[in-house]
C-alpha cells in the first residue's frame, strides 16, 4: 500500500484539473458537431468528434461515448449516460421498506444482492434492529457467491471485448452455474429480492452445502483454465498492459473505489477497512495491483474470485443455527402457516404488506463493498412507512468518471479494453 500524502494528492488534483481530458460538450452539441472539425489554419491537426454508442456491442449496455479524435488518438472524451434511467430513486420513495429491495435489486442487475444488502442495512440502522447471527452469515455467504458471478461476467465480457471470444462462452457457463445456486436459494437467477430489512427472505434450502461445495470445487479448476487461456498469453498481455493507466492519487480524487482503486496498489476494501457483517472474522487477502492498468484490473478480479471462494469455505464451516430474520413483530410478518390459524396473524400480515412498518425519523449512510467498489445507501426517514429519500451511491456511476482520464491519448482500439476494465453496469449507472 502506498503511503499517499497530501502533496502527491494535490499534484494529482492539479493534473486532473489541467489536463482537459473531459470533453465539455452537451449531448445536443455533440450531435451537432460530430464529424471533422476543420481548423482555421494548418498548424494544428484536425480533430473529429465521434459518437460511440449507445448501441454498440462493447459499451456494456447503453453507454455512449463522445470522443474527440486526432487521427486514431483520443484527445478528449465524455461518457453520456441516462439511456437506462428509470427514476428508481423516485420509485423508492413510493414503496414501503418491505417493497424496497424489489426496487433496488434492479439497479445493478449483475450484483443485485449488494444493493439489497446496502438498502437493508440502512433500514436496519434507522430501525435500530439487530439481525440474528444466521441471517448475517447467510447474507455474507450469498453476497460472496454473487461477487463470484459478477466477476465471472466481467471475465466473459472482458474476453469478448478483446477478441477472446471463447472466454465469453466459458465465463458465461461458470456464471450460469453460480446463478444456479443463487436460484436454488432465492428462487430467481437475478433480481432476487432476497436480502430484506430484518434478515433474509428464506432460510437456506436443504442440501445447500452439497450444492455449494460442488460449485466451489469446480470453479478453481476453471480459473486455472482461464489463466491458461488469457493471463499468460502474449497477445492478451499486449492488449492490456500499460493501457488505461491511473495512479492511486488520481483514483482517490475521482472518488473511484473497488478494483480500479486497488489496481493502483492502494489496498482499500471495505470488507477489511470498515468491516460490516462478520468480515472482521474472515481470513482473506485484499488483492492489489501495481501499475493501475487494464491488466491489473483484470488480474485483480480473477484473483478475487479465489478469495471469495476462500471466504465461502470459512462461512460454510461456521454457519450457525438459528433465526434467519429478526423476530421483531413490528418488522417481520408472521409465518405463512400462522395465517391459516390465527386471525390476528392474518391482520398482522395484511398490515405489514399493505401499510408497511414505520421507521423512526433520521438519516443514515451505510456502505458495503460491491464487486465494483463502494456501494452506499443514504436513507432519510420522516417517520412514515416509506423512505423519504433513498439514494444509492452506485460505484459504476462514480467510476465512470475515470474513463476520460484513462482514455486520454490512447488509441481508439483501446477504448473497448478500457471500458471493459472499468466494468460499468449501466443499470447501476443510470438507476
Amino acid at each position, binding site marked *: 500500500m502506498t503511503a499517499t500524502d497530501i502533496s502527491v494528492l494535490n499534484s494529482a488534483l492539479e493534473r486532473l484539473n489541467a489536463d482537459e481530458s473531459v470533453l465539455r460538450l452537451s449531448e445536443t452539441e455533440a450531435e451537432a458537431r460530430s464529424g471533422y472539425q476543420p481548423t482555421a489554419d494548418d498548424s494544428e491537426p484536425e480533430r473529429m468528434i465521434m459518437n460511440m454508442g449507445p448501441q454498440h456491442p462493447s459499451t456494456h449496455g447503453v453507454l455512449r461515448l463522445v470522443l474527440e479524435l486526432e487521427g486514431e488518438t483520443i484527445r478528449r472524451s465524455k461518457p453520456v449516460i441516462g439511456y437506462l434511467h428509470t427514476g428508481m430513486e423516485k420509485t423508492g420513495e413510493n414503496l414501503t421498506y418491505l417493497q424496497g429491495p424489489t426496487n433496488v435489486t434492479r439497479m445493478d442487475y449483475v450484483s443485485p444482492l449488494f444493493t439489497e444488502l446496502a438498502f437493508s442495512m440502512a433500514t436496519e440502522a434507522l430501525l435500530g434492529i439487530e439481525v440474528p447471527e444466521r441471517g448475517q452469515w447467510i447474507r455474507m455467504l450469498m453476497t460472496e457467491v454473487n461477487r463470484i458471478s459478477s466477476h465471472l461476467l466481467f471475465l466473459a465480457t472482458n474476453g469478448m471485448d478483446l477478441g477472446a471470444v471463447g472466454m465469453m462462452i466459458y465465463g458465461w457457463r461458470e456464471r450460469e452455474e453460480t446463478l444456479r445456486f443463487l436460484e436454488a436459494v432465492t428462487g430467481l437467477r437475478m433480481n432476487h429480492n432476497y436480502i430484506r430489512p430484518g434478515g433474509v427472505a428464506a432460510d437456506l434450502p436443504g442440501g445447500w452445502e452439497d450444492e455449494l461445495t460442488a460449485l466451489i470445487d469446480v470453479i478453481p479448476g476453471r480459473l486455472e483454465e482461464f489463466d491458461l487461456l488469457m493471463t499468460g498469453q502474449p497477445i492478451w498481455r499486449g492488449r492490456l498492459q500499460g493501457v488505461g493507466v491511473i495512479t492511486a492519487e488520481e483514483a482517490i480524487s475521482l472518488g473511484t473505489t473497488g478494483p480500479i482503486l486497488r489496481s493502483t496498489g492502494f489496498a482499500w476494501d471495505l470488507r477489511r477497512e470498515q468491516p460490516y457483517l462478520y468480515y472482521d472474522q474472515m481470513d482473506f487477502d485484499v488483492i492489489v495491483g501495481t501499475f493501475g492498468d487494464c491488466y491489473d484490473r483484470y488480474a485483480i478480479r480473477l484473483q478475487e474470485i479465489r478469495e471469495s471462494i476462500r471466504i465461502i469455505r470459512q462461512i460454510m464451516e461456521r454457519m450457525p443455527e438459528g433465526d434467519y430474520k429478526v423476530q421483531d413483530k413490528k418488522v417481520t410478518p408472521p409465518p405463512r402457516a400462522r395465517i391459516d390459524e390465527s386471525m390476528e396473524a392474518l391482520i398482522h400480515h395484511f398490515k405489514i404488506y399493505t401499510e408497511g412498518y414505520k421507521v423512526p425519523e433520521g438519516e443514515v449512510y451505510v456502505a458495503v463493498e460491491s464487486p465494483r467498489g463502494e456501494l452506499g445507501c*443514504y436513507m432519510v426517514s420522516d417517520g412514515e412507512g416509506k423512505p423519504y429519500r433513498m439514494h444509492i451511491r452506485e460505484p459504476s456511476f462514480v467510476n465512470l468518471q475515470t474513463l476520460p482520464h484513462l482514455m486520454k491519448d490512447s488509441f481508439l482500439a483501446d477504448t473497448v479494453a478500457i471500458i471493459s476494465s472499468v466494468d460499468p453496469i449501466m443499470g447501476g449507472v443510470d438507476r
Partner: protein
Amino acid sequence: MADDEVTTADESDDEAAPEEASPEEAAPEAAVAEEPEVAEEPEPAPAPPEVEKLHGVPVSYSRGQTVLHPSREEYADLVGTLRDQGYWMCIDLCGVDYLTANAQRTLPATVSPERFEVVVGLLNMTERSRLRIRVQVPAADPTVPTISKIHPGAENPEREAYDLFGIRFDGHPDLTRILMPDDWEGHPLRKDYSVGSIPVQFKEAPTVR
C-alpha cells in the same frame, strides 16, 4: 397479537432441512412493541455547550455517524480544509428535498432548515472514518458552490443533483443534465414533481432521410 411462533415454516419449502421444534417456541414475548433502540456509538467528546462544534461548524450525530452543518458560505472552504486534514475522498454527493417531510429535522440550534439539502459524504482513508456534510439550500435561490475543483469525483454527482433537484453548483465546469434528456422540463426528484400521468417527453426524433 398472540403469534409467538418462531418456526421457519414456509409453504414452498418442502425439502427444507428437518426442523427441530424450536425450543424458544413457548416463550411468549410480552414486549412486542419494544421501542427500537438506537445503536449508539461512543460519540467523540460530547461537549456541554448547546451548539457543539467540530471543524468550526455545528455538528450533530445521527445513528452514531458524525454530521457537519456548514452554511453555504463555509461549505466549500470546509471541504477543502477537511481534504488537507485527511478526508481525501468525496465518496458521495446527493440532494434532498424536504418540502413534504412530516417530521421536523433534528438540526443544531443555530442551523435553520431550508427546503433543499446537499448531502456530502467524505472518507478519511488513513483513520478509516467518515464525515457527512449537510448544507441547507433555500428554495428561492438553490445555489451552492461547487466542490468539483477540490474533488473532481464530485462532478457527476453534482450534475445529478442539478438534474434531479435543480440545485445549481456555482463554478461547475459542465453543469448540464446527466440522467434526463437535455430538453427535459422540471426536476424529477423534487417532491412537487408528480409521479405518473405526466406527458412523456421524448426528444424530437430526427429523421434520418
